[in-house]
């Protein structure tokens, strides 16, 4: 696939389940990914397809009852699954950081924002030296505060001095997300996991946050794995797109290929259901049907029940990822080749 000689993160055959009363929710099934150092990868898919679960699994922060049942999470060649509690705590926030889906509920409401950022520095002993207990650590606290202020400045929080000691509810949503980005970056991590960092923000702020993340990627060579449900955002932001459906990767490849001529009917569907400016509402075609129940997945292609191209073979057995062109893998037995048929549209498939 993509060049693998400077791989930072490699996920091999990751499976995650949430055992519930209704049965095992197979949130992620046999997922493999490779992210090169400095790369930008997007996980794209509808709500509930397991995107957040992948990110949480990497840092072993799955919400109960979530459990990794299989796979390897190789970060710089070390399997994160095998680390002891103390070791994974050393990785979290220092080598791999995370930005969460909803900034408004992610900061702790009772601590000043600046102090929450500073805690990361303290936890990882970024300022070396003696660890004195609380009132005696004035010098160290001052040095740490300097770094925090610089980080707040860098992510575009105006007058960080004044904002250092105020509380999350006194920040706007966009500012809270910036603070969370500052928090994630303050220890200089190699990998940044961003879970829909812009979904809960309004459009102009969204663009600013994406620009900020792009700048971070370029200035610090921070590798970014971002989750989004918006293929447009993914296309703008990253170099590789992995499309997920029902816990599996259904298509993965370079961003422009995936967006311009996708091979999987699901990816195609995601593209046509994005509204464009100037387009009438009825031209936006949502994909019909619903995401399948993850406790009872069909034996064959999970998308087959909603797919206009599905044949009987699609429903008979598991569909492997197939290389359809250079660098592009598609989990489909009837891949669309719209290079051969450029006039191909979603409407036409519906008619077939």
């Amino acid at each position, binding site marked *: 696939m993509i060049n693998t000689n400077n791989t930072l993160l490699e996920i091999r055959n990751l499976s995650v389940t949430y055992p519930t009363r209704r049965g095992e929710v197979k949130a992620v099934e046999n997922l493999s990914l490779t992210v090169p150092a400095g790369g930008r990868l997007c996980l794209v898919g509808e709500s509930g397809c397991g995107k957040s679960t992948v990110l949480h699994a990497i840092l072993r*922060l799955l919400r109960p009852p979530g459990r990794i049942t299989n796979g390897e999470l190789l970060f710089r060649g070390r399997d994160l699954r095998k680390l002891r509690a103390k070791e994974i705590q050393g990785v979290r926030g220092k080598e791999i950081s995370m930005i969460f889906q909803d900034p408004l509920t992610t900061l*702790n409401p009772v601590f000043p924002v600046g102090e929450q950022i500073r805690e990361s520095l303290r936890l990882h002993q970024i300022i070396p030296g003696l660890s004195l207990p609380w009132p005696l650590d004035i010098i160290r606290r001052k040095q740490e505060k300097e770094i925090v202020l610089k980080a707040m400045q860098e992510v575009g929080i105006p007058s960080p001095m004044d904002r250092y000691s105020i509380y999350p509810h006194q920040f706007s949503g966009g500012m809270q997300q910036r603070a969370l980005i500052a928090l994630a970056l303050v220890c200089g991590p190699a990998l940044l996991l961003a879970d829909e960092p812009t979904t809960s923000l309004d459009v102009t702020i969204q663009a600013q946050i994406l620009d900020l993340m792009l700048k971070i990627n370029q200035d610090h060579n921070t590798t970014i794995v971002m989750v989004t449900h918006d293929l447009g955002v993914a296309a703008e932001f990253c170099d590789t797109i992995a499309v997920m459906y029902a816990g599996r990767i259904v298509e993965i490849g370079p961003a422009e290929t995936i967006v311009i001529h996708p091979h999987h009917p699901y990816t195609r569907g995601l593209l046509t259901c994005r509204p464009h400016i100037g387009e009438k509402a009825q031209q936006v075609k949502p994909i019909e049907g619903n995401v399948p129940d993850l406790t009872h997945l069909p034996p064959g292609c999970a998308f087959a029940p909603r797919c206009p191209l599905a044949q009987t073979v699609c429903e008979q057995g598991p569909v492997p990822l197939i290389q359809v062109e250079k660098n592009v893998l598609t989990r489909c037995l009837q891949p669309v080749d719209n290079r051969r048929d450029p006039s191909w549209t979603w409407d036409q498939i519906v008619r077939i």
Partner: protein
Amino acid sequence: MKATKILERVLAALPIMLGVAITVFLFMRLTPGDPVDIMMGRGGAVSEGEIEKLRSEFNLDKPLYTQLGIYLKDAIHGNLGYSYIQKYPVTTLIIERLPATIELAIAALIISLVIAFPIGIASAVWQNSLLDRLSMAGSFLGISMPSFWFGIILILLFGVQLHILPVQGRIDFDAHLSIKTGFYIWDSIITGNHVALISTIKHLILPGITLGAAEAAVIARVIRSSMLEILRSDYIVLARSKGASEWRVILKHALRNALIPTVTIIGLQVGVLLGGNMIVETVFSWPGLGRMVVSAIFARDFPLVQGAVMVYAFTFVMANLIVDILYTYLNPKITF
């Protein structure tokens, strides 16, 4: 919180106190039974003249509203009237008894917090574990068990059977404590009398546990349920994602938030402490306000009961004021 705001809140308590005073006054006067009969004792040969003299001395010959007016006017000057039975100013009697009650209440509060915090936190962290089930069953027992019964059980077990803890009074007679403030712990510390200190602490344990048990049970439940909710929240995942250890996440990030509802309930429980102390002080022969009120009620010593109820109401109002002040520190979203 600014001093002016605190003053404002204290002043806002005045109408409440006035309402309490009027209500208690009327209730006490409308209950059957003539105070003069009580003062004279039953069956005593007393002349009409003496009775009339007593009536006018205690203003009982005047109409009810005049009596109320006199009572309120005096109360403003800190004079809550004279006890019918003990023939002393009510204020003096209350001030004499108050330190014993406050000391016991503080001991009960400390004991309940020491029990409630570890249990509440541990049951939330290990939800549905054996420990959780046992402590929640225990706290159910603590809430539903009458405190006089619990007190008697403790007396039987630790006092009568095991002889390890005293079950009566505040201090041993041979401790020779010279009383300065009436707070025995404080008095024994400033006079350097460690025998008295140990004796006082020992005397506080059983009544403190009896009074604190129900309180501990309620607080533990509140801590548990708020911790359970908080441990599921996003900012806890954030704290973990920063690399904080699990204990740090629980004791710093989660507990600090759980304190907000916990402090509220502790403030409300002050009322329970005050109500409970009448029973506990009676069971343990504790020379405090509660026991005095109980005997005053039986003796229809109206001024004394009235005075004590005013003190209770005042304490309750103040406790809630303290909670509100603490709140502004605990919850940054609330500013006065």
